[in-house]
């Protein structure tokens, strides 16, 4: 089980990578969203806000009205933010559970893919 600090650390790395990626910034044009993350093993919640083509800091706890909710194990979240995990594979096997529109799901997966194009 990954700790909150591990997830936060992985997120910080991922966030920096994403916000520095020009192509990803273009992809996020007009996509202002609030995403809640829920860990299925440790019952923790986090909030990510995407605004003005930029990913905000990780909020501990569920804040605001979400456009999407992503549920996975804490280990999967940590691996995902480190780029060690293909979220689509986990999603297609039912290990990552999503709530939100298909377009938002696509955009979120695009973020993880473009941030780690060598994955």
């Amino acid at each position, binding site marked *: 089980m990954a*700790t909150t600090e591990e997830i936060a*650390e992985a997120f*910080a790395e991922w966030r920096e990578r994403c916000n520095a990626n020009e192509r990803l910034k273009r992809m996020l044009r007009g996509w202002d969203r*609030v995403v809640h993350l829920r860990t299925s093993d440790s019952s923790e919640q986090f909030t990510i806000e995407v605004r003005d083509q930029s990913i905000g800091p990780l909020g501990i706890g569920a804040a605001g009205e979400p456009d999407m909710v992503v549920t996975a194990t804490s280990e999967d979240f940590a691996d995902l933010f480190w780029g060690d995990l293909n979220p*689509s594979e986990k999603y297609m096997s039912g290990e990552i559970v999503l709530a939100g*529109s298909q377009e938002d799901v696509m955009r979120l997966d695009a973020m993880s893919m473009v941030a780690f194009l060598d994955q």
Partner: protein
Amino acid sequence: MVTEPATGNAALRRAMGLRTAVSTSTGLAFAALEYLAAAGLVVYVAGDSAWIAVAVAGLLALLAWGFFGELNGMFPTAAAIRLYMKRSMDDRAALTITFTYMTTIVLVIAADAFIVGSAISQVLGEASWTAGLWILVLLALAVAANLRGIKVAGSVQDVATYTVLVATTVIAAAAVLRSRAALRFPLSPLHGHHGTDLIEAVALGVFLYSAFEWVTTNAEEVRRPEHVHRGMLIAVGLLFVVCALVTISMSHVLTHHQLGSAYPQLYLGRAAFGRAGLWFMAGVTAVTALNTFNGGFITASRFVYATAREGSLPRPLAALNDRAVPWVPVVALGAGSLVVALVVAASHSWQVLVATGAALEAMIYAVAATCVVRLRGRLPHEHRPFRLVGARTLGVVGIVVFGLLAVVASVSVGNHFNPAPLAVIAVCGGLSAFYVLRVLPRVRAAEQARRSATRRRRPPRPAGTGVPVVTGEWAETGESAQTGASAETGATERAP
């Protein structure tokens, strides 16, 4: 059927309500192809009795609704078809069936492009070959809109679907009333016909409801999970009412020649309100395509994208444009649909298209029944928010009935024996099987090799500490080299 309350996605800012779930389910089923299928169906039975075949098909659609309701409840995700098939059968068989099923979407998009193109060409009084140009224009517009990430909003979809249903109902009822003639054999479908004719009519009737289950791919965005199966149920009811009325009016007022044309709905409009009715129905036909192009392109292209990301299709199919649209599947889908539509237009073989679609849908319903039965055995204690009563018995009934209808529909075109649909399905299934058995192992091996060559980024934990150790390139940046499990990353905020 037993349903249990669930929390659903009520907290989402933009969640899909029951009204949109109904319009999505109904709109996906009520494609322009619906008019051709209805016209093709009436010739199998006596007089104005086709509504009976539509009703029997509706009961079978309810059976399919039970299967998809249970499966969707267990796997409320857009990837549900992959999940329940993978857990019910061998993954290779599951992929082969899924890829074959995906060809239905190509057929429906192609059919709608052909029908709308033909209808436009007809109302403008142009030569029939211009339908090909309209098909090209329509599909080019659909591909361009998809590449730009334009999606029909739920509210627009609601208006479009309910407008089509009401308009079609009004036109069909007006055509019957204005004929001022009594209905012919409305309760005697077998008058002058064989029992097998009725079975073939029912097989086509099932096609009238086909794709109502595609709304299950929206399971992640509904406000409450039960909206999906309730939406499908209401959609089946709406489809029965409208389709029954359309078949009655078509058999009542259209000639055999008009029934066999590529635009019987235009003749129906003309019978109801003259020239104005013809133009009106042309407009309604174009609106039906809106839902097909919107839902079909998104469903198919996203599925291909996700399957490529999963490693079951070549990676180029997961390429995204700057609007996060998987452009390769969208373009391929448009090109494939264009080729099919032009072949159909040139060969006037739209009835083969209808029969192929009917056979494929019956086949997938039989597969859904198989999955329900097998999952009851393999995952007996899995939570089922929607539980089909008598699932094992109904499942076996579904496998037999839908299997039989698939066989019947695949060898019958326009009330004549014709194995063309079977040949089309065999080719699609053969190509899918060839890919899964021969190509996929190589694709997966290449993907595995690529992943093995990729260095793991996450810092390893020393045994027993639970604390990540910072090593390698990441550590060399110095950025967070002092951080451990309890370190502040400087990028975390506590939500109020």
